[in-house]
């Protein structure tokens, strides 16, 4: 097992990894930018090392700075968290070349799953139904041709990264042409890479994903699925598990085929297979995330597993601590992303000083957040302030508890989307478990916020 892990990330996930290290008796060293000096992860870590200025490109996204910090701090492994360098096969390769372990898939595995089109082909070969899509788009003409093959509506997606940036659904060649330019520039700004591809768009689809864990010995398990259909402009807002949209038979088929396919394709690490689900319950593989995800606590709450410690064990070459038959999904969990953004003002991100932060509590309530009263939210990074995760023996109880927890949560001093979450918990479509990924955008967040609060 590792003795010192460099945590090359920030915010709530850096804190989450510090906690995992503490529990495993591993020394944690947080690599931070100058803007994150007063962050909770830096305070809590055993050690901390400043790697650059606020600008991500020169700190969290700088492979040489991160690697140099790891070497200088005497670390034997690097945990990249999510985003930033987490799926960068070149960085993983550099890490290995310097004799350190990248806590994630090996460079070869990352490379094998780097191309989204290639991954679809690979996993289709291993039995997964996949969504029709294109390879990397060379230019607009190529995009047009590919879109004609796939058929409209189609979704433009960036090859690098996720989170909704550089993504647009288009219904015609005209819309495609207009959107390509915007998507390229958004993708370039967000990921430093303007490669795009196309995917068939399913109307009224749901987003369901499967959490898998595969060790270096080819042992693979799934840990149930998460439903991430509550989205705004392709950004997940609420995630829950199990999915209310799957029958037991559909669920078993989805989970079993997902884990079988990735094991057969030689995947290794924790990972998430994302699927679109149509109205009939048919599922189509769209992409794989080769890293820990923001919404992993949903799975932790219903399985009792610690996904981050499992990930560290896998990277250290240990076998999985559980077999599929050991894993039992119990109850229902819902995660609410608490973002510093103004839902009433086109979700403009906010920053500033958290005057008062009071976390909710009680049975089944977990909060993963780097906030504290007096914390300055820097304006340079994403707007995620934390995650409220609520478990209940069933979905109805989880919702009742979530409502109570969201009423109790106080974040004062910066604008947040807490009111949107409260509104969503009063929405009949959400309550019925029939949310589709386009609903929030179609109806508009303002309409949701205006809905009178459901009686408790």
């Amino acid at each position, binding site marked *: 097992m590792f003795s010192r892990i460099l945590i090359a990330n920030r915010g709530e996930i850096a804190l989450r990894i510090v906690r995992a290290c503490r529990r495993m008796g591993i020394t944690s060293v947080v690599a931070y930018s100058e803007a994150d000096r007063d962050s909770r992860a830096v305070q809590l870590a055993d050690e*901390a090392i400043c790697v650059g200025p606020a600008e991500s490109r020169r700190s969290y996204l700088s492979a040489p700075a991160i690697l140099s910090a790891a070497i200088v701090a005497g670390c034997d492994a690097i945990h990249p968290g999510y985003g930033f360098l987490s799926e960068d096969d070149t960085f993983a390769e550099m890490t290995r070349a310097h004799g350190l372990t990248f806590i994630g898939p090996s460079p070869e595995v990352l490379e094998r799953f780097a191309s989204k089109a290639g991954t679809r082909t690979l996993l289709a070969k291993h039995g997964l139904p996949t969504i029709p899509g294109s390879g990397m788009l060379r230019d607009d003409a190529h995009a047009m041709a590919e879109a004609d093959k796939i058929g409209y509506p189609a979704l433009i997606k960036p090859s690098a990264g996720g989170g909704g940036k550089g993504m647009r659904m288009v219904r015609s060649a005209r819309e495609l042409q207009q959107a390509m330019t915007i998507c390229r520039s958004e993708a370039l700004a967000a990921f430093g890479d303007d490669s795009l591809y196309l995917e068939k768009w399913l109307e009224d689809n749901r987003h369901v994903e499967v959490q898998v864990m595969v060790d270096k010995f080819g042992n693979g398990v799934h840990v149930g699925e998460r439903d991430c259909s509550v989205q705004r402009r392709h950004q997940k807002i609420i995630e829950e598990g199990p999915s209310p949209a799957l029958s037991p038979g559909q669920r078993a088929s989805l989970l079993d085929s997902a884990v079988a396919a990735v094991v057969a394709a030689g995947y290794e690490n924790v990972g998430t297979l994302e699927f679109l689900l149509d109205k009939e319950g048919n599922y189509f593989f769209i992409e794989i995330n080769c890293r820990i995800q923001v919404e992993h606590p949903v799975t932790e709450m219903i399985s009792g597993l610690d996904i981050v410690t499992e990930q560290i064990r896998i990277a250290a070459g240990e076998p999985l601590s559980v077999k599929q038959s050991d894993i039992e999904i119990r109850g229902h969990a819902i995660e609410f992303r608490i973002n510093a953004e103004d839902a009433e003002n086109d979700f403009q991100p906010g920053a500033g000083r958290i005057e008062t932060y009071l976390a909710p509590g009680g049975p089944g309530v977990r909060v993963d957040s780097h906030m504290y009263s007096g914390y300055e939210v820097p304006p340079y990074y994403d707007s995620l302030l934390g995650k409220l995760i609520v478990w209940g023996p069933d979905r109805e109880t989880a919702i009742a508890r979530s409502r109570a927890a969201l009423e109790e949560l106080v974040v004062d001093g910066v604008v947040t989307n807490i009111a949107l979450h409260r509104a969503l918990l009063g929405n009949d479509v959400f309550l019925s478990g029939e949310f589709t990924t386009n609903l929030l955008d179609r109806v508009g967040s303002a309409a949701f916020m205006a809905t009178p609060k459901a009686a408790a």
Partner: protein
Amino acid sequence: MAGNTDERATIAHLADEVVPALIERLSNSELGELEVRQDGWRVRLRRGTDGAIPTVQPAQTTMPHKPAAVAHTADHAPRRDQPKGRVKSPAVGFFTLRDGVTVGSKVRSGDILGIVDVLGVRQEVVSPVDGVLKALEVESGQAVEFGQAIGRVEASV
């Protein structure tokens, strides 16, 4: 009320202790811009930039360090104590002093005082002002983090 003189003592304590602590907290921030909101009011501090590169304030942290778990900012010396002549590390890596440079050396603004080796790439450590190198806080071979104080140049008048 018997408590009145006590309350005045409290007011004095608040003025002497609490307010300076708050001000220190504000001036300690290394952000280019700092906004403080409390109830109805809002204060915005914006730092000036002296050129193309923003004047990021240097880190004081010895590295690797163990931050005090309870004192959020107590382990960082106030930034306002940092003179213009502070020589800062441009990167995280291993420091090497340039041959011939010692405490007492006369230096000019932009002179290379040493390098920080970042995975084999040499990043220059430069003097921020004309003057005399008065102190070196890091030795050759030692690890430094980004923004770490390496030395101090006393500006010539």
